[in-house]
Structures are given as C-alpha cells and as structure tokens.
C-alpha cells in the first residue's frame, strides 16, 4: 500500500497531470487578471496570503483560481520532492541524471521559498518620507529609515526616469547602513530590501509681492512690513 502510494507520488504521470491542470487554471487566471485589473493590480503590494485575506470579501469567485493554482503548485513541489528523494536513494545507479535532478531541487527550493514568503513575508508601500525625516519601518520593530537627500533624475524630455535617494538604515540610534538607492540598486540588509517607489512635491511656502518687493514666505517665517504694519505670523503648509 505504502509502496504504491510512494510510486504514485514519484510518478511522472502525476507530474504531467499536475502541470497540465496548473497550466489550464493559470490560463483561466490570466483572463481574470485581464478582466479585473483593479483587483489584481494590487497583488504585488502584499504577500499572497495577506493579499487574499485583504481582498477576499470583494474578490468573490474571481480570485478562487489563486488558491487552486497555489495548491496545485504545492502538490507539484511535493511530487518533485518525492521524485528527488527517490532519485537520491538510488544515486549510485542514477548519478548520470544529476543535471535533471538539480533542476528538480531548484524547483523545490523555489516553491518552498515562495510559500514561506507568501505566508511570513512583509511588504509595505506608500511610506512617505521627506528629506531629513526619519520613519519607523513597518513590521520591523526597532528599525528606522532616514532620508538624507533626494534627487530625481530626468530624461531630456523632462520625464522622471530614476530617483536617487541617499538613505540611512537605523536600528534604534545605531546607524546600520548608508547608501544611495536607485533603480536596480536597492538598500539590502539581511532579508530587508528598501526601494524608492515614487515621489511627489510638497510646497513649503510661497512667494508673493509686497510693496513691489518679492518676498518668500515659509511656515514660521516672519516678514516686517513697512511702518505702521504688523509682523506676519505663522503660515499653513500649502499642498498642491
């Protein structure tokens, strides 16, 4: 009985059935992605399990292919693992197929890594930070990020093509790493990876003409008006 079950788990026929089923379900899934972009465009913003929990109420049956596809890939990983173990047990007679089984092993690692990332991983986006400011990194107790300087890189057409952000990663008050991050050059520290997502501008004041004189006003700044007038006090930050 156990022998038959093991044979079934290692069988290439099982592999072919699982790959065919996964392929068909993923084809169906890609059609869902195309027809429901608002829902599925958010998939990269969170680990898979967290996304599914967050969007389950509005997802309905549109997203049911995801757990089904995930379950099939997990089964495929299990099937590959059984196959790899079976090969390892007969290594002396099957060593010539080591290359093929290296691909099997790689696939097992990828499935395990993706499953762990989907369950225990963390992604956080829309964390705004201004120059000179420090923010706490979400879900990473004790870790902080400081933006030392920021400079967007523009194409000749004026379109932004990169974001050069000089940042410092802190653990408490201790500086762990300072680097300039841009596309393809993130800040990495152990399993943590920090990238610049987007940027926006924030007005910190305004210029106006007072008695034919151009005056710059910022929050907290003061300007003495000609005799008989008052000092201007605080200003609110204007957002455009």
């Amino acid at each position, binding site marked *: 009985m156990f022998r038959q079950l093991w044979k079934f788990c290692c069988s*290439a026929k099982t592999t*072919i059935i699982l790959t065919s089923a996964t392929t068909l379900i993923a084809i169906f*899934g890609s059609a869902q992605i195309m027809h429901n972009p608002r829902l599925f465009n958010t998939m990269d913003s969170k680990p898979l399990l967290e996304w599914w929990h967050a969007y389950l109420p509005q997802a309905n049956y549109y997203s049911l292919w995801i757990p089904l596809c995930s379950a099939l890939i997990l089964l495929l990983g299990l099937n590959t693992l059984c196959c790899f173990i079976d090969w390892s047990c007969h290594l002396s007679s099957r060593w010539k197929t080591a290359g093929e089984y290296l*691909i099997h092993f790689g696939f097992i690692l990828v499935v395990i890594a993706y499953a762990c990332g989907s369950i225990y991983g963390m*992604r956080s986006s829309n964390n705004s930070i201004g120059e000179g400011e420090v923010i706490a990194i979400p879900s990473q107790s004790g870790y902080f990020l400081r933006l030392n300087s920021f400079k967007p890189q523009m*194409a000749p057409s004026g379109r932004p093509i990169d974001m050069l952000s000089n940042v410092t990663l802190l653990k408490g008050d201790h500086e762990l790493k300072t680097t300039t991050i841009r596309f393809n050059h993130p800040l990495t520290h152990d399993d943590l990876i920090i990238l610049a997502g987007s940027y926006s501008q924030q007005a910190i004041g305004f210029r106006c003409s007072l008695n034919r004189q151009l005056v710059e006003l910022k929050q907290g700044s003061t300007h003495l008006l000609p005799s008989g007038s008052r000092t201007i006090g605080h200003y609110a930050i204007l957002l455009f």
Partner: protein
Amino acid sequence: MYINALLLNGCFAVYCISVVLYIAHACLRWPRLHQLALGTVLLAFGCQSLSLGLRWFAAGYLPVTNLFSTLFFFSWALAATYVYFELRYRLACAGLFVMVLNLILLHIALPRDPSPPALIPMLDTPLFTLHIVFSFLGYALFTMAFSLAVLYLIQGKTSALPLPSRSMLQQLNEEAIFLGFCFFTLSLIFGSYWAYIAWGYYFSWNIKALWSSLIWLYFAGMCHAKFIRNWQGTGYAWLSILGFAFVLFTYLGIGLLMKSSHPLA
C-alpha cells in the same frame, strides 16, 4: 548608420536568396544547391551578427528595448539555432520552413525605426541582458521545435520535399525542446533575480510573468513526457505546435493585445 542600414537590408536580401535556393533544391534536388543555400544562410547570419554587434557597440547596451530590436534579435537567435542544427545534423529542405519564418520576422521588423531608444535606468543592468538573451534563445529553440514538428507531421504525406526521416525530425524536435527549456529556465532565473533587486520580489503577478511561468511549466511537462514516459510521435508534435502558440502569445500577443505591468510587455 549607413553601414548598419546596408547590413540590415543586405542580410534580408541574402536570406531571400537562401529561401530561393532552398526551393530550387526542393524541386531539383541537386546537392550543390543545398550547399549554396547553406552558404548564403551563413553569409546572411554573418551580416546580421555584424549588424547586431555594431548596434550593440553604438548603443552601449544590447538593443532589445523596442519592437524592431526584439524582432531583429529574435530573428538572429532563430538563425543561430538553425545554423547549429544545420551544421550538426544537415537538415536540408527542413531549413526552408525556418528560413521563411525568419524572413517573416525580418519583414515585420525592417519597416520599423531601427534607432535604439536611450536606455532607461531600470533596464541598465547585466541581468536584463542575460534575461533577454536566454529568453530569446529559448523562444528561438521552441520555434525550431515547432517547425520540426510541422515537418514531422507532413513527412510521409508528401514526397515533394526531400525531408530528413521522421525519426530524425522527432529526435531534433525533442532536442530543440530540451535546449529551449534549459535556456528558458536560465532566462527565468535571471529575470526573477532582476525583479528582486528592482522591485523587491521575485515574482510579479502580471500577465507576462504568469504566461512565462506557464511556458516553463508546459515545456517541463513535455520534457517529463519525453524523457520519463517516452511519449513521442504525432501527439508530441502537436504539443510542440501548441507550445509555440503559447510562446507567440507571450512574446507578441500580450504586448500588442493586452496591458501588462511587465517592463518588457
């Protein structure tokens, strides 16, 4: 610039001559015509490689960032694949079909603007080059497998073409699929690592990435079917044709018909 235009049009013209020579060989069956056809393919491939090298040198990066350059690179990879199989196994008239496919790719590419756009920082990494090179080598081998599968299906039904034997076509089809699968695996590895350093995750849920994974799974299934279950023959040839349809959809269909957040869609 002038040299490059000359090389581009020159290689197209020489590929056309090679197709004419292959047709002449199919009709007249003179061995000398096959040698001439192979010679012209090698000459055209040399011109194409030189053109690609010059464009690479001028741009400072592998120019595969617009439709012209990807079609041109796909055509180059297909020609390289064909040259490998022809020199190793002497495909004879089987080359006619591949060369016609190659001409179609070049014909679509040539009217487009060949000047490479400025490289955006997102694509400025060797991982992008590796991802693209292995991806197109994989595509080219799957295309080769498709053409060999078509020839396998028509072999025996017509005596008009002096084709290799069915067993040889079958063996070459299987080799093309296995090599294509290996190259495509490397492409996915480099692509995933690039995604990790560019976006912080190895796999993005966009249609192109999903279909690329599908292609990998599909051809992994085919490799299992062949090497472990020893499935081959007509059914396997039809699966190769279906696999090529997946490849074509992933390469062109998604980019032209759908919206995908993949940087190369």
